[in-house]
């Protein structure tokens, strides 16, 4: 077992005829992911890398009733509609690769997804991988290896470097999840930490956050309740201070959003915070050995 996807997961690619989507459809198929269909309106009947293209998600679902996961590769202005289409057609998990989706669009899609109990991951996620079983998105397979560490990060490249760093130290991953780099995310740290906490194939979690936003702080109270160790890596300590707008943001978010506020919230709630990438496997080992 892994979280969110496994080797039986059937998946579709929305926007499959785009060049990036087409290349990564090939990579996913090579990895063993069951890509059963693609969707591009007006291009129904074509095929991409041997995968049949449909005009609508519902057309695809008629022929593939077991598909539960869609990945979204369409341009940002069409992302909201593509997400809603997948939700209405019955997808349970929607992995949004598209980046820079308008904030109001994503708020709305997220709202509909929550009402329908659908998980959106992203936008601007590299996707997720359960090494050796399934890959949805565009993560480079070389970075990952099967194992018992869950990872969850906002940045795609940081996800790869962490897995890389873990692999070099002999730690494989149960599942690696990219939350996405957009400001509004369908799934946040807490959601994924909960899944890892319950997953019998995961022993510990590495979470990587960064300056900006509130998701790291919001996850902190849950970490306190977790039985599994959490190693956190927060970037942006050296970044120039971000902007602030008016009083409204401060009223709502208080002092959240800096690297320092995130590190403090995580440490106070029992996460072990790494300073560098190479420190991560070391701290992980300590935590798992109980020597920490």
């Amino acid at each position, binding site marked *: 077992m892994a979280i969110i996807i496994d080797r039986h997961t059937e998946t579709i690619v929305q926007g499959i005829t785009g060049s990036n989507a087409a290349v990564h459809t090939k990579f996913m198929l090579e990895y063993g992911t069951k890509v059963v269909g693609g969707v591009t309106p007006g291009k129904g009947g074509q095929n991409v890398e041997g995968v049949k293209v449909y005009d609508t998600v519902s057309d695809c679902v008629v022929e593939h009733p077991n598909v539960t996961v869609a990945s979204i590769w369409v341009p940002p202005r069409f992302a909201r509609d593509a997400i809603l289409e997948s939700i209405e057609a019955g997808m349970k998990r929607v992995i949004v690769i598209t980046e820079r989706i308008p904030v109001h669009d994503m708020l709305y899609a997220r709202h509909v997804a929550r009402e329908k109990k659908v998980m959106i991951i992203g936008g601007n996620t590299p996707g997720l991988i359960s090494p050796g079983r399934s890959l949805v998105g565009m993560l480079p397979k070389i970075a990952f290896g099967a194992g018992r560490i869950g990872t969850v990060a906002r940045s795609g490249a940081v996800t790869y*470097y962490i897995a890389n760093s873990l692999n070099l130290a002999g730690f494989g991953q149960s599942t690696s999840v990219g939350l996405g780099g957009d400001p509004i995310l369908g799934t946040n740290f807490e959601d994924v930490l909960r899944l890892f906490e319950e997953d019998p194939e995961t022993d510990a979690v590495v979470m990587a956050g960064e300056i900006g936003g509130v998701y790291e702080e919001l996850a902190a109270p849950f970490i306190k309740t977790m039985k599994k160790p959490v190693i956190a890596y927060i*970037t942006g300590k050296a970044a120039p201070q971000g902007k602030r707008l008016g009083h409204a943001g401060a009223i709502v978010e208080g002092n959240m959003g800096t690297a320092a506020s995130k590190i403090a919230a995580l440490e106070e709630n029992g996460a072990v915070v790494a300073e560098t*990438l190479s420190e991560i496997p070391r701290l992980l080992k300590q935590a798992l050995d109980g020597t920490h």
Partner: protein
Amino acid sequence: MRLYEYEAKRIFKRQGVSVPAGVVIGRENMGDLDRVVYPVVIKAQAFVGGRGKAGLVQSAGNRAEAQEMILNMLGRDHAGHKIDRVLIEQKVTVKRELYLAVIVDRLEHMPLIMSSQRGGMDIEEIARTKSTPILKYYLNPGAHLNDFMARNVASNLGLRGLLLKDGADTVHRLYRLFVDYDCKVAEINPLVLTDDDRILALDAKVDLDEDAMFRHPQLIQMGIAARHEVGEMTEREKFAKRAGIPYVDLDGDIGVFPGGAGFGIASIDLIQHYGGKPANFMDSGGAPTQEKLRAMLGLLLDNPGVKAIFGARFGGISRCDDWAKAVVQFIVENRPQKPMIMRMAGNMEEEGRKIIEKAKVDHPELFKKIKVYAYDTPIEEVIKETIRSAQTEKK
């Protein structure tokens, strides 16, 4: 994307949110001071708050006084911004100062209307101490603001009788503005009730969603387009902006050529951690073209402060072969003398490797100071080596 107060107020006017009569004045149109009815309030235009305390908001009773104050403000630096315009507004007599804002609440993931019967500079203090209640009114994303909701907010602002309707109207218009212009924040602080019972937005703060600008051509017509918000831009930053590259100059000697915004931030941290000094922040975006990659390298090469370049590509959506082609072409065309210590891993790594190896064979003299490590070298080793190279170069 933050707007200047005068830009925000232009949008307010379009949407029917009342603002004081005003004129924007710079050095080029001081003559417009003749059009103004005195007394006035002069407000320097800057993104950064704290203008009052910095003496950048002042009252003037007549033209001479106004002109003197303006000339005094123009050119001044306010938290890294040079003041080049002021907004002059007719002075109004204020009966009450209120607070009204619509914001994307990132905790609840909903639009949030906030209102308080006390507004002004101490609103954060009010929020912290709860000395005056701040009503938080959440809406479902995509929902219309019903009339009764606007009335509830206006009622919380303490508006009664005929003013209830006017207040509800202002709430409606501000919420419409928030939705129609894809705002992250639309804030009025203070919203005032004048002695003649008008409701006016005395200040206006608007933060637009950069990622939704494609659907607001009317903003470009109004002269409102993407801008650099933090401090004055350097020449390099201006060049980067034109090339569509998020770029910030820092004061170190290691040029950073990362893949992805997230790792760009991480690499700056790591360089500092290992005792180096980054010369810049840069973001390639999702899947940069080869042209863009070359422009990114050009920014670093042309910067005399950069002694060594750190590069990293972990190919996800962006492929190693494309990256390798761009890097090789750049090197062949520009013959860089600076050390470039890089690492390339990920999708299409093998293809990328072949491109680099062939180039090395074809142009051995160009690759003397250039290294491209692979998957099996930890990224932090690459960073450390770049720091050492930079130190060597400086000697």
